């Protein structure tokens, strides 16, 4: 079978290389014929270790239930919000905006974000999206959630999650460097305190970047063990499954 790439993104950076400069779009993907997938990502403020699961930037409550400053009409490709924090220019690029309201027919619409200007808290900010809205929303009544690109500023999963599970780094990654984050396929994991047996479902519940056997209580599922954890070390190979599987 070999080691061929099937879905190629022309970033001039190998999957086992890191870079201090950005070589392509964050979120771009490269896929190998054996099912391994990697997303181009930027590390956050802590050095990363191979095999330790990372998550996206910590959730910010000011990104949720934001007031709409202007009505949204069908066909609009922009929406204006009243911010509750400072945003840098295009900080939300590649992220998502979601309409949130209890009114039937309004809640639930989500669009990918193309750009945003730099603003401070309390300003009006115009968000531009890729695809037009197919429903209306009302200023002063409906609210929105925004989510930045989860691969921009990843961190090692803390014991209590603060952001979305993103993947597993295949190498050491320096603070603020760019790298390929593994998001699917056969993968290197580091096990935590609990014993893992081949075939087990793997979860990261209550652990910092390491995996353990699925337990059933609020499991944060990430894949299956392909090997048992042994007594002389904590590394094991498994199948990573965090929603990026498939063609």
């Amino acid at each position, binding site marked *: 079978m*070999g080691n061929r790439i099937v879905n190629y993104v022309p970033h001039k950076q190998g999957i086992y290389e890191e870079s201090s400069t950005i070589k392509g779009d964050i979120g771009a993907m490269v896929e190998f014929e054996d099912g391994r997938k990697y997303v181009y990502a930027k590390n956050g403020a802590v050095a990363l270790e191979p095999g330790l699961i990372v998550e996206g930037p910590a959730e910010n409550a000011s990104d949720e239930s934001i007031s709409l400053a202007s009505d949204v009409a069908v066909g609009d490709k922009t929406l204006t919000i009243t911010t509750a924090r400072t945003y840098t220019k295009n900080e939300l690029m590649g992220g998502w905006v979601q309409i949130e309201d209890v009114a039937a027919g309004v809640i639930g619409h989500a669009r990918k974000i193309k750009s945003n200007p730099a603003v401070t808290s309390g300003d009006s900010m115009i968000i531009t999206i890729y695809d037009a809205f197919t429903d209306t929303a009302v200023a002063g009544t409906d609210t929105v959630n925004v989510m930045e690109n989860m691969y921009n500023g990843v961190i090692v999963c803390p014991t209590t999650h603060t952001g979305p599970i993103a993947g597993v780094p295949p*190498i050491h990654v320096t603070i603020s460097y760019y790298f390929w984050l593994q998001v699917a396929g*056969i*993968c290197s994991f580091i096990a935590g305190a609990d014993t893992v047996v081949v075939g087990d479902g793997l979860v990261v519940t209550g652990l910092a970047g390491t995996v353990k056997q699925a337990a059933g209580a609020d499991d944060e599922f990430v*894949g299956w063990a*392909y*090997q048992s954890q*042994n007594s*002389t070390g904590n590394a094991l190979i498994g*199948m990573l499954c965090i929603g990026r599987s498939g063609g």
Partner: protein
Amino acid sequence: MGNRVVNFVPIKQGLYEQSSTKKGDIGSVLEFEDGRKFVYSLNGTDTLTPGAPIQGPVENAYDESIVLAENIAVGDTTVTFDVHASRGANLTLNQLRDGYIQIEDTAAGVIGHMRKIKSNTAAAVGTECVVTVYDAFTDTATAGTDTLNVLLNPYSGVLLKNSTSDGPWLGVAPCDVTAAYYFWLQVAGPASVISGESTMVVGDGVSLDGSATPVLCDGANDEFCGWAMQSQDTSGNAVMIMLCTGR
């Protein structure tokens, strides 16, 4: 939508055919536009039946925590280790090809690196084996101190899933397969399975925990394998599920 292949692998063997001779690389993928995915596999010693859950070869404890025989330097693409005297079987030439090797040690900065295997030398138990990997190591490892895990290509020598998992969860056989024949193993998409569960209801999460056939997720060490697309009726045990194996 029809039944078109989207990711075509030029293996001259139909989806529902088996072959006594190898027609292509084990591990090659065939994907249909409806989400079904199949991996070219070699059956082991069992006779497989359609709908039967399939696992990879039984784990060999002596393929884990193997002591390094020579240091690894940054840039190396080979790894040398001694095949454990108790492994029970020699390593044949390229038996590890398309498998994976993982560095395992408790030392920070060493554990967690994984590479895909390109080839290996033939080695009897108790003798030295040299593995060549596709991508160079980006960290060092020390002979006599650091250890390795190796994982053979899981799709070579598959078997009916045992009630207590002892190999990686892989997928479902779509047809009858003779021992030691080559076939397409289903790894994703709508799939036929034979359930061991009398009360499975459409929408249920499905697990393989403690069973050779799919059962309901019960929250205790669930080995998740998909979602029920139909309720199981009382006149038989076959049910369609959306198969989830990480592919």
